[in-house]
């Protein structure tokens, strides 16, 4: 089994097609949508967690690519500049998924678990030293 949080970017041509429904039916994948939006010019994005066996997952993501949908792994889109971060904790207060968390109460270091990130962007706004970036974030 494989499970990844992914951002799909739809263009005007694909945003009105039942892509995700096809993906689930044809490739036996399950999905859990975290956020989605369609913009005024009809392009849009979906952030979801996609789960299934490895072969289905590969085929499914290939199906998305074949349909001109831009795929980005969320865990690859969040970047923290460790030279800037001073482990204050402002971000921990707002992170909804404990991707940013103080695991070790002895050192009080703020850890980033990229696999838990859902690209909500709350941390980007609150970080007082702008240490966190979400690349390609819509």
């Amino acid at each position, binding site marked *: 089994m494989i499970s990844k949080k992914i951002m799909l970017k739809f263009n005007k041509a694909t945003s009105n097609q039942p892509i995700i429904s096809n993906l689930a039916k044809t490739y036996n994948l399950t999905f859990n949508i975290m956020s989605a939006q369609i913009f005024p010019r009809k392009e849009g994005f979906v952030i979801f967690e996609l789960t299934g066996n490895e072969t289905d997952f590969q085929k499914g993501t290939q199906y998305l690519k074949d349909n001109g949908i831009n795929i980005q792994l969320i865990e690859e889109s969040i970047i923290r500049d460790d*030279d*800037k971060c*001073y*482990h*204050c*904790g*402002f971000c*921990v*207060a*707002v992170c909804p998924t404990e991707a940013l968390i*103080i695991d070790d*109460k002895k*050192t*009080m*270091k*703020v850890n980033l678990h990229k696999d838990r990130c859902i690209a909500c962007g*709350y941390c980007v*706004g*609150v970080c*007082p*030293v*702008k240490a966190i970036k979400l690349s390609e974030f819509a």
Partner: protein
Amino acid sequence: MFKVNKTVEEINEKIKHGEAVIVNAEEMIDIVDKKGIIEAAKSVDVVTTATFGTMCSSGALINFGHTKPKIKASEVYLNDVAAYGGLAAVDAYIGATAVKAKDPLNAVHPGRFEYGGGHVIEDLIAGKKLKLIAKGYGTDCYPSKYAEMEITIDDLKQATLANPRNAYQNYSVAINTTDKTIYTYMGVLKPKIANATYSSAGQMSPLMNDPFYLTLGIGTKIFLGGGTGYIVYNGTQHNPDEKRNNRGVPMTGAGALAVMGDMKNMNSKYIKGASILGYGASLSIGIGVPIPVLNEEIAFFTSVKDEDIDAYIFDYGYDYPRRIDNNYGLTNYRDLRSGQITVKGKTVPATPLSSYYMALEISEKLKEWIMDKKFYLTQYAEQLPTSKDYEPMKYVKGNI
């Protein structure tokens, strides 16, 4: 009065001969637990304490040298952030919370406050080039009315950090009882008491370890922003008479330090411009204070634990902005650091704003400096105003 009696001079002599025992405030807890205060006072000479947090009451005094022709600069801008020019010709003071003239502020709430005085200070210390604009009205001795130049900290005659209030002894715990998310200097506070924030390094923090200001005062040399500086006065709002617990530790703000230091010896790792969402620009800064263990009472005070330090919980959604005198009870730093506190029977996640992680690092750095004989302790010139509640050994006796 005390069974152990040491002086700063004697400790410095030990440092000089490489014989001083220096530990940080966390290590001192275990030492006192194991040995007791008398043996701890005999064996430990210095306890290093530290804090790293956002401290708005900070700024820099600069002198940019005379221009040709000369100018009496009444308006000064550094990277478009206004500095105060109501001083002599080429002196200016840039405050940490000043922002650019065209900053949208909170026009679109919550504002981002991308660049302010704190960032100017960080950029200077990092050695970056900044644009300086000076405006004057022209006098016979200072005829120029406008000067624009690119400068780095090396071009400045003086660049002195001058912070009226840092290292607050204790601080409030913040919650929000309203129905809306609020954006405060205590961070983002979610509605209906969904989270709590706090801003102290607790057991590591300088004034928690010397709650009656017995070993530090005007003239005490400190770690400041990666360089050295001094405590120059009691901080603004310094109030030693706040209510204290049975260890003599105040349960709210209380003492504070005014500090100064040469920015030319600082390091931007330990001093950073800050943008606080919806609130404003500020400066995050590291301060380390060495506490000489002069006697068993100081050993007792420096063994303070997070669980011995109380803090009141305040509502920043309703009460605080209206200056309503109300609180939501007490918690302590052990609970705060655990990540959960109880507010009116409800379990609430708690997160810090002050970096304990960096406080530990600074306490280690300061220890290193002392061991390497790069840093000696100073006897203060004068004590800070202290509490009427202090009597020698009173709090030690109360805890046996």
